[in-house]
């Protein structure tokens, strides 16, 4: 297993990761995604209090060359947004699972987590 796919996270096929702590889920994009995008120069995120719906877009991440939608891996209300990314979007490249986190949601339907991939499943997904 690659260290670029932490074993303790869940993953969506659209290359978001989810770290679950109780009812809260921290969301970001994977190492694979940031590497595919290249230098990230802009991240547009929703505001605290907004509701996310699983599998719908909640923001965009732009590299020099491309615009990519962010898809919510789970539903819920946003309780935290990584404001640092407004001025330092390169943190998504440098530390996608740490300083590059994007939002924290309070999940409304934790059962949705079962639809996500585990690290092994995601490794297989990105190898395809």
């Amino acid at each position, binding site marked *: 297993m690659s260290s670029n796919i932490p074993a303790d996270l869940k993953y969506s096929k659209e290359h978001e990761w989810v770290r679950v702590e109780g009812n809260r889920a921290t969301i970001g994009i994977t190492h694979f995604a940031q590497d595919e995008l*290249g*230098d990230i*120069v*802009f991240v*547009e995120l929703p505001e605290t209090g907004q509701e996310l719906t699983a599998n719908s877009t909640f923001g*965009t991440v*732009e*590299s*020099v*060359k491309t*615009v990519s939608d962010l898809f919510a891996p789970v539903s819920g209300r946003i309780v935290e947004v990584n404001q640092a990314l*407004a001025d330092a979007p390169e943190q998504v490249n440098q530390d996608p699972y740490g300083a590059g986190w994007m939002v924290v949601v309070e999940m409304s339907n934790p059962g949705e987590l079962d639809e996500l991939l585990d690290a092994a499943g995601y490794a297989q997904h990105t190898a395809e």
Partner: protein
Amino acid sequence: MAGLKRTPLYPVYERYGAKTVDFGGFEMPVQFSSILAEHEAVRTSAGLFDVSHMGEFEVTGAGARAFLQRLVTNDLSRLEPGSAMYSPMTYEHGGTVDDLLVYCFSDTRFWTVVNAGNIHKDWEWMNAALRADEPVSLVNRSDEIALLALQGPKAQAILQPLTPLALAELPYYRFAEATVVGHPAVVSRTGYTGEDGFELYVGAKDAEDVWQRILDQGQDTVKPCGLGARDTLRLEARLPLYGHELTDDVNPLEAGLGPFVKLEAGPFIGRAALAQAKADGLKRRIVGFRLLERGIPRQGYPVWADGRVVGQVTSGTMSPTLHEPIGLALVDAAFAKVGTALSVEIRGRQSAAEVVKTPFYRRAK
């Protein structure tokens, strides 16, 4: 990628970690390490690009100059052997077929260097314009010629030990037939980055050796660069890109290329239409703008002013040198003045912008 052409340098891409994309029908490196790092290398040191996808047509014969003058808007009568000239090539209606470089080797031997995506179209266009009795021969040498661009303030220092040609004596837009690491080469002081630099036309079989020797010579002062950095560099320097600022629908006057349209030269195809457009006053213009809010303008985004759509973005990026979002847009001429307030519609939302002077970046002389 299936169906895409590859340049003679394709085999070295992987060694340098390139990510490739389809550009003009070629599988080209968009980046080797990072677009931002490559961009900065060219602005502060040097970068080496494979631009072998560009097309080269050789035009020879007693009628070569007169033939080319019928096709391009610039004044070729002033083009001396050893000089290159930039020019748009237009349709009868004034829209742009392509923008290209004309190299004059002698009064009877020229090259035109054309955009990769237009090679086929230009070849057909030029052949169709050739009269049966005209003493001109046209040869498409695109596949046998590779093109490397070494760009940046350290380009001359890196290249000089590799060629007997005295580079300091080669002015901007001049070229010479010489050798680079022993291989025959056309060494041209031209580029598409807004920096000093050289474009090296070499035989396809020599491309890999020249590429490698330049990187060895430059060590950590030169980076292999992809088309991503080439695009951000040319945009900061406000150099047009065909398919963005120039299209078959946009004439070179609208694109701000008036200095390269010599209405007294020629006659050339499109002259009457361009003279008329100028006499009537331009309806649209390409303008430079900067975004005053967060976001990144992209090609095709609508541009608003006075509560209506007045144009669209032709190119946009987060400027790596200026650290702000910049772009070019084709807008109604009434909104083209520097300082005009515009807004760019980004994913359904209006972001404030203003027309600014271009180029966005100009190197210190």
